[in-house]
């Protein structure tokens, strides 16, 4: 059992999500092994983003269990789950446009600081020292994602490709064990896509487990260890890229059931 926990960072058991009469996820079971990159693919409306929202606590599942390192988290609020070590990016960029590039990453460090209103108001030396540390570690992350020279720019002013990278950087700032990336390559050109996928590989190489939703099949096939295919909220295939690629059900789902 404990070996199982060690191996599986995330485990979903019988997860069901309904919106009114609509079944967004039906009886979903899967595991994410530590240190791997797992991709979730499926046609539009398959429930991929819903799945991310459930895992990261935007809303609880209607039924079922989500376990992070063996601990049920499905009832926890988003900020609690973030503090446990799950971080995410958003399909449509959700940066803090009113802040600079480095401030966005510094906010990502939020789980690592104790923010007391009084302590910050009185500017106690301890909280100022902490700010310095956060600034330094944010700069390190910016170097890692290649945006260090733009640290003072407003996050709004970056081109989409860099905004996507910055979102990943912000998600990394909390030093998560599991990072959920929602379509990191959406809207990017070929060069930018290449940069994003090498970054994801580099993040994984540092030991972070990656859960990925992506439409760009080249990216998915290249970087994932395992793929889970969703269709109408149901799992229709799961396994290494080469197996999934040849699955009839997957081909049917994508091509409209010609066979």
């Amino acid at each position: 059992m404990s070996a199982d926990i060690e191996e599986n960072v995330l485990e979903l058991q019988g997860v069901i999500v309904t919106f009114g009469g609509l079944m967004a996820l039906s009886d979903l079971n899967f595991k994410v092994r530590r240190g791997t990159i797992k991709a979730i693919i499926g046609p539009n409306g398959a429930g991929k983003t819903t799945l991310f929202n459930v895992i990261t606590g935007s809303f609880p599942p209607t039924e079922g269990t989500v376990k992070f390192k063996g601990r049920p988290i499905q009832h926890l609020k988003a900020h609690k789950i973030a503090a446990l070590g799950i971080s995410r990016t958003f399909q449509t960029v959700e940066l803090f446009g009113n802040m600079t590039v480095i401030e966005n990453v510094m906010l990502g460090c939020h789980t690592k600081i104790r923010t007391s209103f009084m302590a910050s108001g009185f500017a106690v030396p301890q909280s100022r020292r902490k700010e310095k540390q956060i600034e330094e570690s944010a700069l390190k992350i910016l170097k890692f994602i290649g945006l260090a020279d733009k640290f003072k720019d407003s996050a709004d002013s970056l081109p989409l490709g860099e905004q996507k990278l910055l979102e990943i950087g912000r998600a990394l700032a909390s030093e998560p064990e599991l990072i959920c990336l929602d379509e990191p390559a959406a809207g990017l050109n070929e060069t930018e896509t290449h940069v994003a996928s090498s970054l994801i590989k580099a993040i994984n190489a540092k030991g972070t487990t990656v859960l990925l939703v992506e439409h760009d099949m080249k990216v998915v096939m290249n970087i994932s260890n395992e793929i889970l295919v969703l269709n109408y909220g149901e799992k229709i295939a799961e396994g290494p890229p080469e197996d999934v690629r040849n699955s009839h059900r997957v081909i049917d789902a994508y091509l409209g059931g010609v066979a």
Partner: protein
Amino acid sequence: MLRIAKLPIAVFALFIIVFPWIARQIPVIEHYTNIMVFVGIYCLITIGLSLLMGYAGQISIGHAAFFGIGAYVSGILTAKYGMNAWACMVIGMAIAAVVAALVGAPSLKLKGHYLAMATIAFGIIVFIIFNEEIEWTGGPDGMSGIPGLSLFGFEFNSVKRYYYLVWGFVLAVFIFTVNVIQSGTGRALRAIHASEPAASAMGVDVFRFKILVFVYSAVLASLAGSFYAHYLNFINPSTFDLFFSVKLLIMIALGGMHSIWGAIVGTGLITFLSNEWLRYFEEFEIIVYGAILLFVTVLLPDGLAGVPGVVKGWFRKQVSDER
């Protein structure tokens, strides 16, 4: 980083210190020191509102109520029960904090217009209480006999003394708030303003921060109310009506919501307008406020604090047009 420079604060403090002396030299503006006391009192409210609205992005059109709570708690407890004025001030702030937490808990889950409506409703309810609880508040006639302030035998019994007392508090509150803005707490507030889903995904307890900043702004409004009551020695409900909440909104909108300096400048301008420069307009005063609000929202969305940016943009355009 969002750094608020120290030099302007020092210059501003110096201006505040010498202002009464300057005013005394020029007979026409001699009474401006008196108006500046009100500016200081209102600044206490608008600094908190700026943090709430400009930084955290949460609208309140009900802060006249917290202003009134401070004034009435101080007024009732000192005038009727002869309690220590400073202790009453603290009690007022504590009551305002509890009320803010109780009102904020359900209403801060609302967004935009709905939050505005909820706070308006709260303001109206409190206004009605001030009017109807005649036994306590004196009703629409108001209550008089509120004593002045003194500390260890030192009486704040002249305009100048009260001026320095109030502005001392304003400066302290200003520096405290600037520190909050420049800390992780301020960053979290601005993050909430920009994107609540992203803020909570990054571990920010959105609800806790909203309540915290709402309570802080309410406590400051209550403090201002206490100073108001002890300065005028008389209060009546009409000071704490919906229109005053709107006036507070105009103050920070004119100055620039995203800037704490804006709050102070806007408060100064509007207070002087209503106490001095617009006296001849009498009831039509409100039209001028409407015009100001319209002008600002349409042409200067960042208020006076945004003027340098607008001017810079204009110049750049001129230069590029010439080419």
